[in-house]
Structures are given as structure tokens and as C-alpha cells.
């Protein structure tokens, strides 16, 4: 084999070897999501100590992301999804009742006739819970549906983690 043939062969092999590497290096564009994270964030308390077996009040604090609103627990239209708090069975903690804040009135600029009942910014739900004796890491749930002035996000259920100590 001549030197020239060898050189051509090596160059061709190198060039061909680069093809798959270039293909592999293709940039897959990733777009940013419409809303980063959840529309509603649970703030506090992280831990509560309550008398075992006796329903006791606890105030749970949440925050709605800026620019968004969620329906209150009692929306004015029956097609709207109400904000609801729940505790799954078998958590070691019984939900005895919940008092939701009244929603604030809101109208969309494009439809000023329809009045909405919503939560924005920070809001608190007063719940009465009865723990069994012991330490319970409760994964309570908040179900809501958020919108801004022009569009709505799908309904969502977030976990509300509370360490409940029943004494």
C-alpha cells in the first residue's frame, strides 16, 4: 500500500468516525414550562403537637403564585373546580372539619360581567384534626385549579406534608 493510499484511508476513517459524533451532539431544544413549579405552595406549619384523639384546630398557610388565582372553596359557577383540603384514610389523623376563607371577588378584563370567587397571594385554611397517639407524617392533599387572566392550568393536587404528634 502506498503512503498516499494510507493517508487517504486514515483521513476517510477519521471523517466517517466524526459523522455519528456530530449527530450525537445535536442540540435538543428544551422549552421552559409555562409555570415553574406548582401554582400553590404550602407554607407552614411543618409540625404540630396535638392532644391524641381530640379534634384540635390547626391553621394551614398557603401561597398562590404571583399573577395566578385559584377558585375559592365556594366558586360562583358550578363548572369551576373548588379548592378542597383532604387527609387520606390511614394517615393516623382524622380530618374533623375545615373552614375555608371567603374568596375575593374578581372579574376578568375581557368579561367584566362574570364575577369570580378566588384566592390570590397568601391564604389560610383552618382545619380541625384528631391524631391517634404517636408521630404521624401526614401527606394531606390540596386540590385546586389555577388560572391567570387569559388561560387556565389543569387541576392539580399537591401534597401538604405535616408532622402531627398526638400526645
Amino acid at each position, binding site marked *: *500500500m*502506498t503512503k498516499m*493510499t494510507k493517508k*487517504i*484511508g486514515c483521513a*476517510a*476513517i477519521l471523517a*466517517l*468516525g466524526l*459523522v*455519528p459524533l*456530530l*449527530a*450525537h451532539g*445535536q442540540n*435538543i*431544544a*428544551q*422549552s*421552559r*414550562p*409555562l*409555570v415553574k413549579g406548582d401554582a400553590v405552595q404550602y407554607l407552614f406549619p411543618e409540625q404540630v403537637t396535638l392532644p391524641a384523639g381530640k379534634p384540635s384546630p390547626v391553621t394551614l398557610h398557603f401561597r398562590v403564585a404571583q399573577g395566578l388565582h385559584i377558585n375559592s372553596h365556594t366558586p360562583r*359557577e358550578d*363548572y*369551576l*373546580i373548588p379548592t378542597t383540603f383532604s387527609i387520606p384514610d390511614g394517615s393516623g389523623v382524622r380530618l374533623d372539619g375545615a373552614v375555608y376563607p371567603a374568596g375575593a371577588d374578581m372579574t*376578568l378584563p*375581557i*368579561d367584566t360581567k*362574570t364575577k*369570580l370567587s378566588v384566592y390570590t397571594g397568601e391564604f389560610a385554611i383552618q382545619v380541625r384534626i384528631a391524631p391517634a397517639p404517636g408521630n404521624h407524617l401526614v401527606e394531606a392533599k390540596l*386540590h385546586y*385549579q389555577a*388560572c*391567570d387572566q*387569559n*388561560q*387556565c*392550568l*389543569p*387541576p*392539580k*393536587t399537591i401534597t401538604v406534608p405535616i408532622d402531627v404528634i398526638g400526645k
Partner: protein
Amino acid sequence: MKKMRSIPLKRNSIVLTAVLFILAVFAWAGWANWEYRQQAAEKLLASAARGELVPDPAGGMPQYQSPFMGKAAPAFALDDLGGKKVSLASYKGKAVLINFWATWCGPCKIETPWLIELRNKYAGQGFEILGISTEGDDLKADDKAGWAKDKAAIAKFVAQQKVPYPVLVDGDSLSQAYGGLDAMPTSFFVDRKGNVVAAQMGLTSESEIEANIKKALAD
């Protein structure tokens, strides 16, 4: 003497042929590998492609940028409220507005009368709307009662608004194919060849929807 010279020449020809053959094999392998990776990249891109809202530099409403602009609208076949399968392919040759909406979506309710009016205005020119209900709720596939409740809510809305175009259910199954469907309403305007010529996320205006319908009808 002549014999002595012809042997290396013959050997060189064999070596050259062998080298060319090896190069051809390498070229074919490289091309096949590149093709394979190209297809894999396209698949990944399709699965990861998401629409996004981009701020308007002029200070107006954010603009929805769909990864499907100029591309074929992803195919689908979904049930209508009567349980009949309706496919996008069956509308080939027509301009189609694919409107993803939900019963819990206030802005969707505001735009529906506009859609009905525009559908009736342009139907004669070969235009149709496919409303696709996308409840996006936490319903499990086996939650028959939940799905029945959703379907009843959709049917109630369709009857109340006297929606004249087909309304299909289970738009959630198209979420990935259509770039995530992060918010409702989301609309795709498809031309007669089946390509997406415009897309909107969120409530815009009747005039903007009409302008996009005209784009879809233009070809």
C-alpha cells in the same frame, strides 16, 4: 523482466480494491449510524417538544410559540360525545382549527361563542373546528364514574352553547403529541395540506382567531 513488474502492479490493484471496499463499508456504516441517530434525535425532539409563551417585545400579550409551526399536525382519532371515532385525517383538504378546551376553563367559555360565529362564517370555504375536551384532572383510567361525570359536564356545555362542530373527548391523551398543552385554551390552525400554520395559547381575541383562520384557508 515483464513478469517481475506486473506482479507488484497486480498486488497494488488488489490492495487498492480492498481499501476502497473497506472505505465503502465504513462510509455505509457511518451513514447508517448517522441516519439512526438522526431518527433517534427527531423522536426525542418530538417527545420533548413543548410550546411556550414568549413575551411580546412590543409589550403586548405573550405570543405562543409552537414546535409544530410549519409541520404536519400530529395525527389523532378520538371519540366524539356519541362514541364515534373522529380522525384529523378525515378532514384532509379542509382548513381545521383544533381547539383544546376544558369545562373548568373560564377563558374557554368566553371564546366559544367567537369560535361558533367564525365556524359558521367560514364553513362554506372548507373550514371546520374540532373542539377537544382536555379535562387534565387526576382521573384514573378505570374511574368510570369520574369519566362519566366529565362527559356529562362536556355534553351539558355543548348543549348550552349549541356548539355546531364536533367535540371530541380525552384530549389528555394528545398532550405529549401536541407539545404539553400546559394551559387552556390552546388552538392549532391547520391548513388544507395538514400543516400547522398558527397556534395560540390562552384567550386572545376574535379578530386574532379570524386572522389565523384566514391563514389556514389561504393555501
